[in-house]
């Protein structure tokens, strides 16, 4: 995974709440077997509307998404994270997120920066007024600055540490192999196993 230390870019204010992962990428777009190419399905239902903010010429190249509360609720599809990343987003700033989405984002290197809703409101106003406004997100100091707005954001320490260092979770866990083996040695023998296959007669 790539390290994430600091990012500066323009923003896409998305004034909608409850944007679930079915809206981020509808199920019909989930049929690939790779992690790339999902940008086509991003916000697919809304994309056909030329007035949808993602389609506005002045918003092209935006890398920071600022949605309303309860972003990424619903389905666990990590494709939602990939679609946002494939499209070019590096940071999502918002007040409330679906738990699974936030987890998935952290694993894939997409920074989810949590701020109070009134900060979101101010960022919306500022970036709507000026589409070229540069927003800087600094993970080390957990701060966001945009024009005269300067604010902290929340991200849990462990995710921050992993993103800053670009660490792969599986690699980290495998350093604790001994602990896993020790746990397995203690598991009761009656615990379920799926092999060999069994069926009802």
């Amino acid at each position, binding site marked *: 995974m790539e390290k994430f230390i600091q990012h500066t870019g323009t923003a896409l204010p998305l004034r*909608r*709440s*409850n944007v*679930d992962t*079915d*809206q981020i990428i*509808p*199920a*019909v777009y*989930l*049929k*690939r*077997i*790779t*992690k790339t190419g999902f940008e086509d399905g991003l916000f697919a*239902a809304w994309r056909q509307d030329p007035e949808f903010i993602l389609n506005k010429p002045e918003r092209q190249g935006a890398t920071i998404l600022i949605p*309303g509360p*309860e972003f990424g*609720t*619903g*389905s*666990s*599809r*990590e*494709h939602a*994270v990939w679609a946002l990343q494939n499209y070019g987003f590096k940071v999502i700033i918002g007040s*409330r997120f*679906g*738990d*699974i989405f936030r*987890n*998935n984002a952290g*694993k*894939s290197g997409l920074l989810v920066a949590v701020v109070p809703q009134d900060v979101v409101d101010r960022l919306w106003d500022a970036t709507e007024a000026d589409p070229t406004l540069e927003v800087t997100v600094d993970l080390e100091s957990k701060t966001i600055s945009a024009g005269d707005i300067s604010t902290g954001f929340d991200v*849990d*320490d*462990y995710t921050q540490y992993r993103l800053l260092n670009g660490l792969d*979770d*599986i690699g*980290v*866990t*495998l350093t*604790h192999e001994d*602990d*896993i083996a020790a*746990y*397995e040695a203690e*598991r*009761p*023998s*009656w*615990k*379920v*196993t*799926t*092999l060999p*296959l*069994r*069926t*009802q007669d």
Partner: protein
Amino acid sequence: MGKTLSEKVWQDHVVRSADGEPDLLYIDLQLAHEVTSPQAFDGLRQAGRRVRRPELTMITEDHNTPTDDIFAPVADPVSKLQLDTVRANAKEFGLPIHSLGDIDQGVVHIIGPQLGLTQPGMTIVCGDSHTATHGAFGAIAFGIGTSEVEHVFATQTLQQAKLKTMAVNVNGELPEGVTAKDVILAIIAKVGTGGGQGHIVEYRGSTIEALSMEGRMTICNMSIEWGAKAGLVAPDEKTFAYLKDRPYAPQGADWDAAVAYWKTLRTDDDATFDVEIDVDATQLAPFVTWGTNPGQGVPLSATVPAPEDFSDPVDRVAAEKALEYMGLTAGTPMKDIKVDTVFVGSCTNGRIEDLRLAASIVEGRKVADGVRMLIVPGSQRVRQQAMDEGLDKIFTEAGADWRFAGCSMCLGMNPDQLKPGERSASTSNRNFEGRQGKGGRTHLVSPAVAAATAVAGHLASPADLNA
């Protein structure tokens, strides 16, 4: 101080715990399907990793499998690619799989309990947000993303930060005609779609205890719809009776040892939850959704709400957008809303008990003109059982479409989809925009309301049919 049920199960699975880090939890069972697994297998392959415990894994095919003719070649080339891929991956990594045409194939959350793989006190994960269904047995079960799927394959563990605990206390006898589905829809309408975020929820109280295992599964299934990470119910004699003699249930002395442990899985009397919510079951009624998230629901006897009814500005805007998308006018009685399609199925309500209930209502009646009713059993085993009981005949004689098992119109990944503007009454769990097909409009309902609606042609309860 005592512990809650979920704290006990959690503690029994901690492999490693360190300050400032999430716990490393052992995973007893990983379930997988064709849509959220290919990238995980790819990751393993690229890193030269194996699946650590193939025998703690079960794969099925459900999300985009056809349900009309499962023996014909899969027409959609991309669906076919995913099915071919999951089969090849199962083979390469030595994992058990129930493929299309197999009697144990079906929706992943239906087959786990049915095979007896789902047992109390387990940790169960799946790349699917409705994994909490398995919590009905007193397991900690939750949905994970594909990176985590890969992590579990490689390590049989998951890094998971501690969660807060919540109790939803449901007490009292349910009024006639009110089902588990109505209970959970009412809970979500009460607390909102984000109400459970960061929590493991225990559903408890006399109402929950009185429910069948199927009913408990329906409730736990929708935990994610109000943001909870997982939902569970303490195991009891009903749980043990359900499991006894299922294919993967422990046997002989193992059974006794297992039951002895399972009986310890109850929240201690002196344990405390971070949050508690009380629900009076006697006040509940059949519930339906009018909007585009599962929290936008009202009793069936109510009218479509107006945006002004909501004091929170965010809710008000959401209501405006939802009404526009749903093509509904505030003040319209819910029962005046006509539907084009009725879908009975999914991991929420695709079990045998649900089909029996729906069949008992359509029996001797006809599906209304212009309405199509799809009956999609949750698994091939459920389908077989329903046919043994003659339910398929009841459905087809009423004019419904009797299908093979799969997710089908729950998420519209296979050919079963709504057309733009079409409206459904659906026993599934999500009424999101476009969930059942682009532009499709979904009303979430119980199997009883679904069946009555199919007959009436508009949203209705079974009692309305006799009026």
